[in-house]
């Protein structure tokens, strides 16, 4: 039944959007600002997550070994390392190789090395992790297990940085959701009040519709379409502005941040995040109008 009346309902919603374009424009701006705040924080958090991933992908774990280990002990430790699903590659570096590498990396310290009576560098296994093995808990437990093996004397991994990046990303995301949440709530009430004003302005029409036999659903639908459209437009505009910011930000603001620039890069949102923003806008708009129209519909 409702489908037969669709053209009338769409026309009514369109007329309403146009007739009250001033206040509708303001509500679209408010919605887009709210969703823009969430979008910016999501983009920042995406960047921090990305940096964390890069950091963990490029990091190797070094297990330092006792110099006096027999070859079967070395093989056993290697087999234990390779048994983990996190590990991509294991390389053995003997004491001599470690010394050579140090000498090559720090040629200015050659004098000190020449004066050494014995090689202080322990042999080690250098482990490269598989990409996407960012799960810090799994990496920690893997390191703990290997460290307990006989002959493993120490372990080195810049876990602290990865953890910091990970928690920073979470904090940024939480701030984004908190601020965005407050703004969405505010825009929900603003939409609700704007629709209420529209409903009030059309009170006469609603009354006539009711008295000539329109159902409440029939009266309600144009307002729902209106709320849905305002919300959807708001979130789409916020995504467009965010897209522009992602393009413009590195050119104008990013360059003045120096070393911190990497932290403040806005990284594109994922398809899933975009989907949530758009759905969020549409749902906010629709719910805003549902609450306001219902109060005016008393038969």
């Amino acid at each position, binding site marked *: *039944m*409702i489908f*037969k*009346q669709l*053209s*009338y309902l769409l026309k009514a919603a369109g007329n309403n959007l146009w*007739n009250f374009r001033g206040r509708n424009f303001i509500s679209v701006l408010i919605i887009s600002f709210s969703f823009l705040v969430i979008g910016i924080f999501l983009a920042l958090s995406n960047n921090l997550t990305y940096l964390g991933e890069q950091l963990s992908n490029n990091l190797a774990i070094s297990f330092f070994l006792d110099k006096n280990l027999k070859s079967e002990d070395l093989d056993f430790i290697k087999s234990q390392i390779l048994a983990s699903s996190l590990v991509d590659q294991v390389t053995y570096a003997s004491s001599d190789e470690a010394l050579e590498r140090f000498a090559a990396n720090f040629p200015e310290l050659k004098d000190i090395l020449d004066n050494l009576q014995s090689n202080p560098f322990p042999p080690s296994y250098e482990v490269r992790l598989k990409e996407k093995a960012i799960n810090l808990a799994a990496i920690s437990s893997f390191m703990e297990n290997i460290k307990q093996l006989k002959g493993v004397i120490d372990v080195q991994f810049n876990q602290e940085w990865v953890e910091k990046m990970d928690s920073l990303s979470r904090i940024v995301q939480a701030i984004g959701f908190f601020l965005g949440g407050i703004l969405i709530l505010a825009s929900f009430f603003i939409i609700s009040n704007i629709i209420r004003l529209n409903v009030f302005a059309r009170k*006469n*029409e609603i*009354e*006539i*519709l*009711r*008295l*000539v*036999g*329109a*159902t*409440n659903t*029939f009266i309600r639908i144009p307002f729902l379409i209106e709320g849905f459209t305002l919300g959807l437009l708001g979130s789409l505009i916020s995504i467009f502005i965010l897209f522009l910011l992602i393009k413009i930000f590195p050119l104008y603001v990013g360059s003045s941040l120096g070393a911190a620039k990497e932290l403040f890069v806005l990284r594109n949102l994922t398809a899933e995040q975009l989907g949530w923003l758009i759905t969020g806008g549409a749902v906010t708009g629709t719910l805003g109008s549902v609450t306001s129209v219902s109060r005016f519909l*008393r*038969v």
Partner: protein
Amino acid sequence: MIELYHIWKQYQKPHWAISDVSIEINSGDFCFITGPSGSGKTTLLKIIFREILPTEGQILIDGVNILKTPDHKIYRLRRTMGIVFQDFRLLFHQTVFDNVAIPLQIIGLPYKEIRRRVFNALRQVNLHHKMWEFPQRLSYGEQQRVAIARAIVNQPKILLADEPTGNLDPELAFEIMSIFKEINKRGATVIIGSHDRELIRHFGDKIFFLQKGKIIGKEAKQ
């Protein structure tokens, strides 16, 4: 058949707008409710199409107690009625066509059919040439005729009209009454609230006289 039993209506204590009104209107009747201003004509009509509820009493339309009809089903009753409001209740930001088309649009008729019926209704009230005008550009009498066209466009079973000729010259008033009579001949029950004695004398088959909310007399032509 419309039956009203012991209807009382109070807006504000201690005055009663309607006091113990009981009337019966048969299907196909052409009747007038008449009385001086403030006698309760409009209130009684509003009660019949359930815009307001009586304080006490019962109303049966074709055997159904409309006071017991749940709110969400009342639209079914109203779709069988055509109503001409005293204040017209037109939408001034919509054209004459859009105003008259409302009762047809809510039942989902195809546009072609809506156009045909709206044109016919407007032709009956002699306003078809102003179909695309906005109501504020029409005279008072023309606005009233738009309200009448909207009431008759869905060929209602019951037509209620509150002072439908109040702002029309006698010639046009007679014309409008003739339209109502025509609709009545097709089987619709017509109830008109009016204090125009000339019209009532000429057209009224059944007349209820109201004073201070009470029925003080009834007259039926044989």
